[in-house]
């Protein structure tokens, strides 16, 4: 059993502090939005979770490409870890968006481009996990996982584009001014600082979870090898 690396413990602590600070900033530092009120505060973690979800899927694609080129098993572990974390945060993104949409759009759900794309993205990576579950041979599982992570990530922007050609009501807070978007607002400097800090906090959470998950994958591999040795 390999000991937990010291840097990982340090990262745990740093992440916890930064995350607590981000929560405090959201509730006590950022001003309340004039029109939407308290519910607007969902925005900070909603966008941050979406960012971590996309980051996870991007990392999975990059790990897939590197795995196919090198055949090094650790990139397969990294790819799976990134997909699992990405799925959880993409789900947080969707759920927190729903909570915000209920009072602002007056509905939990609407078939808007971003919402639809986010859902299809979740389905793609659910299919990724099912594909992996259906294959016993570890090499083949890793290769197929890598191929599907690449294909899935390429299709996401196309999906977004394909539904974007319809009109959207999702607000675009950063860049772009769409008059049909409902619930848009301008950020004050304090809001922007809180938002940026939330992004940073979630990035730390991603790095920390990713490290833990990769380490878990390596340990699981070791257990599997020991088990095989026992059987022989």
């Amino acid at each position: 059993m390999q000991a937990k690396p010291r840097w990982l413990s340090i990262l745990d602590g740093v992440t916890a502090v930064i995350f607590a600070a981000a929560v405090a900033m959201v509730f006590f530092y950022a001003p309340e939005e004039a029109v939407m009120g308290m519910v607007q505060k969902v925005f900070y973690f909603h966008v941050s979770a979406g960012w971590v979800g996309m980051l996870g899927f991007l990392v999975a694609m990059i790990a897939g490409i590197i795995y196919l080129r090198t055949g090094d098993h650790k990139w397969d572990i990294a790819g799976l870890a990134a997909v699992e974390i990405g799925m959880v945060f993409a789900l947080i993104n969707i759920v927190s968006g729903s909570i915000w949409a209920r009072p602002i759009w007056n509905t939990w759900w609407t078939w808007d481009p971003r919402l639809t794309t986010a859902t299809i993205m979740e389905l793609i990576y659910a299919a990724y996990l099912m594909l992996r579950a259906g294959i016993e041979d570890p090499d083949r599982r890793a290769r197929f996982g890598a191929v599907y992570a690449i294909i899935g990530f390429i299709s996401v922007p196309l999906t977004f584009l394909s539904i974007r050609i319809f009109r959207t009501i999702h607000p675009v807070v950063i860049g772009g001014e769409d008059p049909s978007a409902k619930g848009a607002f301008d950020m004050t400097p304090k809001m922007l600082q809180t938002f940026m800090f939330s992004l940073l906090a979630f990035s730390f959470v991603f790095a920390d979870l990713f490290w833990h998950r990769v380490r878990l994958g390596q340990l699981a591999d070791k257990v599997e090898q020991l088990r095989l040795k026992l059987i022989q």
Partner: protein
Amino acid sequence: MPPKSILTPEKPAEMPALKRAKEPAPASRVEATRAASADRRASSFLRAMAAVLWKDLAAELRSREMISAMLVFALLVILIFNFALELDAQARANVTAGVLWVTFAFAGTLGLNRSMAIEKDRGCLDGLLLAPVDRSAIYFGKALGNLVFMLTVAAIVLPVYSLLYNINTLLPGLIGVVLLGSIGYVAVGTLLASMAVQARTRDILLPILLFPVAVPVVVAAVKASSGFLQAADMADIWPWINLLIAYDVIFVAVAYMVFDYVVEE
């Protein structure tokens, strides 16, 4: 029952590694040999691709298993839609494109699954992989075969739909969209089917893998088809056609790049 695999490459492909090992030749001759060997490689690629395609078509012509199943299935789907959606004259104008593409997508999945399953069942895939040809030639051969089957189904479903529902579906624009949409669907479908057949849960896996990835192609195809059926302005249809072309190009290229890893043993 005819044998499923009748692929016998007339001539084994050149071994580039052996050629390269020869002593260095003068620059001009190196150029000439390189051009000639590139030529030969291209023609051997096309021959291998045509052989795989021909094998699939010949097997299908003799057994007619896949086309008949896809066709009956497609007609059943249209029949079910008829009752599920109450396809009266008003509803038809709006949903025809959707009904057609759902039908093509479902029938296409059936064909894709079957076309890879027959390769896997009797070890034909291993035989194909042993052939000294470029692996991507096998991919393109299979994909072209699947495209032919899907277009055949479309070629029968479209006039039948016209006949049953009194809507003219034989428009040049719509046929072009069917071609573009089928290319994209088959390009990514052939790749995913060759992964799905190697999994334990192969029969149920292909639609789960394929549908979320194929969403852009289905959305764009439905929108473009609906535009042509309702005689919309070409300016409204072009974005969808462009999206279809972009999807086709991207996914044919990606499938070409990764197919080697999917069939590697």
